[in-house]
């Protein structure tokens, strides 16, 4: 379909001025979007996909500028347009929605007012009709009770609701082109489905063109006509969505496809034609699981509870006057769950945000104290030891954890080596600087981190490298149980594939057991032997990975599975 292109990007190059001279984020790319067409720009972080969209709307920050190339939007060259002309286009002809919806709205201004601002700016309404038009925009995005929501503030709305308001804001002036920059990242998978359905429905209904920027191939496949794949600032492939998934041409696209966890692939498949990053010899040596002090599961959790007292509603004054409101029942984040982890097993803990899976993992690693129930680890109830004293107990070294956000989990003022060495210095038997250095280098090699990188600060390492440092630190003392709290959620798909394989390797080599906490069912399917599905603090289903994810018994699990977008295969 050779429709007249609404947006024609020709030979676009965008440069950023940094300390070491200009760095090209986007290198002479060509993208075209026809009227009514939905195009996905797919790529990993640093591929330049967001920069392209910012260049189109010309909201690059001060350091960035369009070095060469043209962006023509229905005949008008946006690169040459002056600021006043651009300002008329933004919001009226081209509008954008961003990631992290709650932050994208002004926290101290009513959402209705924010929509009115755009309407009034682009003379789509007068002072009198502004409110009515805003409410109308809210109804269009299927927000319940729009009049009420008009006066609401962003912090009073849920993530999904905020994203609907952002969409309403973007479509208020009926623009011709909508650019959506990772609109659903960070939302629950069910909310993600609802938001994407809404976007596609509204844009199709009005014959608008849409650019969806995402790192999730599944999303691109399910919702877009054409897919543009970018790698390190270059467009490596452009093809119809149906085409690209059946036979991707460019090797990078193929690798990307391959690395995306989905039904019917195994963990190893993810790395099929990826360069070998895990050293060959590390793959072969497989040792048996650790000799057990006693028979029976490594860890037995019985009736675990965690309560948070409701914020003291009645003010101190009210209490004094004796008319404080009745004390609401404490909020139960974890509502009496029991499960066990066998030696050498990977147990998956799955559920949407707020279901209590992270709280459970914090209790199991003894970072916070349970309100009730037992945590029996290799025979002793470690739940009884208060978290404050647990640092000194011998069991400390046997339970470790890999954190979700690698950047946040590394002390910015410690080099990678110092971070890895910290547990060894505290509890390890290694004495002397050189021995410590050697041990750290072994661990680095073990997790596939180039040895010369361990002298760097965290902010000088990539996401994948930081994740490896976190893992090296966790296994430094040869623990029995490692809790993985969404270890790859913050990583790019290709890096995620490598890290997941690394974790599988290490479990085999060091005979550890894993508790794998995640909201991504595809990843859980690849890694876990058994799976537990949690919802609002209790377990809704438990069983082997195949049973639970193959044909789930609980309605909630089924709902989770259907919400996952997967390519048209």
């Amino acid at each position: 379909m050779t429709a007249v292109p609404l947006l024609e990007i020709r030979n676009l190059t965008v440069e950023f001025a940094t300390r070491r001279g200009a760095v090209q984020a986007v290198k002479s790319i060509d993208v075209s979007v026809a009227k009514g067409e939905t195009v996905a720009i797919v790529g990993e972080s640093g591929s330049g996909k967001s920069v392209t969209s910012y260049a189109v709307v010309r909201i690059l920050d001060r350091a960035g500028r369009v070095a060469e190339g043209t962006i023509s939007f229905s005949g008008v060259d946006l690169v040459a347009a002056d600021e006043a002309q651009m300002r008329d286009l933004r919001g009226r002809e081209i509008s954008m929605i961003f990631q992290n919806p709650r932050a994208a709205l002004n926290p101290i201004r009513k959402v209705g007012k924010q929509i009115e601002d755009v309407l009034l700016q682009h003379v789509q309404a007068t002072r009198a009709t502004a409110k009515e038009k805003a409410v109308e925009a809210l109804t269009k995005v299927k927000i319940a009770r729009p009049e009420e929501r008009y006066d609401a503030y962003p912090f009073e709305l849920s993530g999904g609701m905020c994203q609907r308001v952002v969409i309403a804001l973007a479509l208020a002036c009926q623009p011709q082109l909508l650019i959506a920059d990772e609109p659903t990242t960070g939302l629950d998978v069910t909310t993600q489905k609802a938001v994407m359905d809404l976007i596609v429905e509204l844009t199709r209904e009005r014959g608008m063109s849409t650019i969806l920027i995402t790192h999730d191939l599944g999303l691109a496949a399910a919702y877009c006509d054409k897919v543009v794949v970018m790698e390190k600032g270059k467009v490596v492939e452009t093809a119809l969505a149906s085409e690209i998934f059946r036979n991707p041409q460019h090797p990078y696209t193929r690798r990307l496809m391959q690395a995306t966890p989905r039904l019917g692939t195994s963990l190893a498949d993810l790395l099929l034609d990826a360069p070998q990053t895990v050293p060959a010899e590390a793959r072969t040596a497989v040792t048996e699981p650790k000799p057990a002090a006693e028979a029976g599961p490594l860890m037995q959790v019985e009736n675990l509870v965690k309560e948070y007292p409701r914020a003291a509603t009645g003010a101190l004054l009210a209490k004094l006057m004796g008319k404080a409101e009745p004390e609401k029942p404490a909020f139960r984040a974890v509502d009496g769950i029991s499960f066990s982890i066998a030696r050498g097993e990977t147990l998956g803990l799955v559920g949407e945000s707020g279901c209590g899976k992270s709280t459970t993992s914090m209790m199991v690693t003894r970072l916070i104290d349970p309100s009730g129930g037992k945590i029996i680890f290799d025979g002793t109830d470690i739940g009884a030891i208060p978290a404050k004293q647990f640092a000194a107990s011998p069991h400390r070294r046997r339970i470790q954890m890999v954190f979700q956000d690698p950047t946040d989990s590394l002390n910015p003022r410690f080099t990678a080596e110092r971070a890895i060495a910290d547990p060894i210095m505290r509890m390890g038997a290694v004495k002397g600087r050189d021995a410590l250095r050697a041990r750290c280098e072994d661990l680095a090699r073990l997790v596939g981190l180039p040895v010369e990188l361990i002298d760097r600060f965290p902010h000088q390492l990539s996401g994948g490298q930081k994740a490896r440092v976190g893992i090296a630190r966790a296994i430094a003392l040869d623990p029995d149980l490692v809790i993985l709290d969404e270890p790859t959620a913050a990583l790019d798909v290709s890096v995620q594939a490598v890290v997941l394989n690394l974790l599988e390797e290490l479990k085999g080599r060091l005979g550890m057991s894993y508790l794998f906490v995640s909201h991504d069912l595809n990843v859980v399917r690849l890694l876990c032997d058994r799976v537990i599905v949690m919802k609002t603090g209790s377990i809704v289903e438990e069983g082997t990975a195949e049973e639970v994810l193959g044909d789930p018994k609980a309605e909630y699990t089924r709902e989770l599975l259907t919400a996952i977008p997967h390519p048209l295969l």
Partner: protein
Amino acid sequence: MNDMAKVEPAPAQAIPAEPAPTLRFEAPPSTSLWAHARHIVAENPVTGLAFGLFALILLAAIFGPSIVPYDPLASNTNAALQAPSRAHWFGTDQLGRDIFSRVVAATRLDFSIAIFSVALVFLMGGLAGVMAGFYGGWIDKVVGRVADTIMAFPLFVLAMGIVAALGNSVGNIVLATAIINFPLYARVARAEANVRRDAGFVQAARLSGNSDWRLLLTQIVPNIMPIMAVQMSLTMGYAILNAAGLSFIGLGVRPPTPEWGIMVAEGASFIVSGEWWIAFFPGLALMIAVFCFNLLGDGVRDLVDPQRRN
């Protein structure tokens, strides 16, 4: 007048300060401190100026008393109240003492007032704040109440009360400055420690078997240093202003020791009578020092903050 609580509490709801889509690039290995410092100076001329002035003040403080042309204490009544001339670059004061020598000689005293005040208030306020932010509970309440009580005092009158009560020695001026700055440091340290208490790397450190006390010293305090550095540089400026204020109402340093504050206070009564230089030059030195300390804050923060070093 003392450091009006040169307040810079981190914005309460910590809106992410990360500017819009700057790109994170994989950087080459870290450059040396010296190269990094040179880079900051190039990037921000004002900070360069601040570092230059600081070096000048430091030199004057160390070598001052030995290189001055006249004895700062020697009076010479028949050369009293002479305007700046080649013999006396900054002119002479009421007793004929050479003002240039006194200004240079005073640098050491004023510099130490600034340094000791800041050190004392960092130890008192900073650590108390960090403990309050980290442990919370009753420590937080106690530190909070003490800070509020001091804040409720009219700060300058409190400083006067302390100096009047304990006598106007340099030590008491330093103590008074430290006490009136306590709430500011406690508040800033508490906020920063509170934000970092549950950070990933702190949890990880707990997992590695670090006791709370060690966590504080190795993980939390080093990470709040950049912010404290800015605050400390501001306080250095205000410590000297505080000494000057106290001198103006007669509670300053004991005569005849040369100190900028007291020299400006004495010179102030000569402005109207035309001998402007008596107060002008110590005032200028005071201004340059306070000016330098204030601007130094940003420079020090860039230097200390590893993020900036790529």
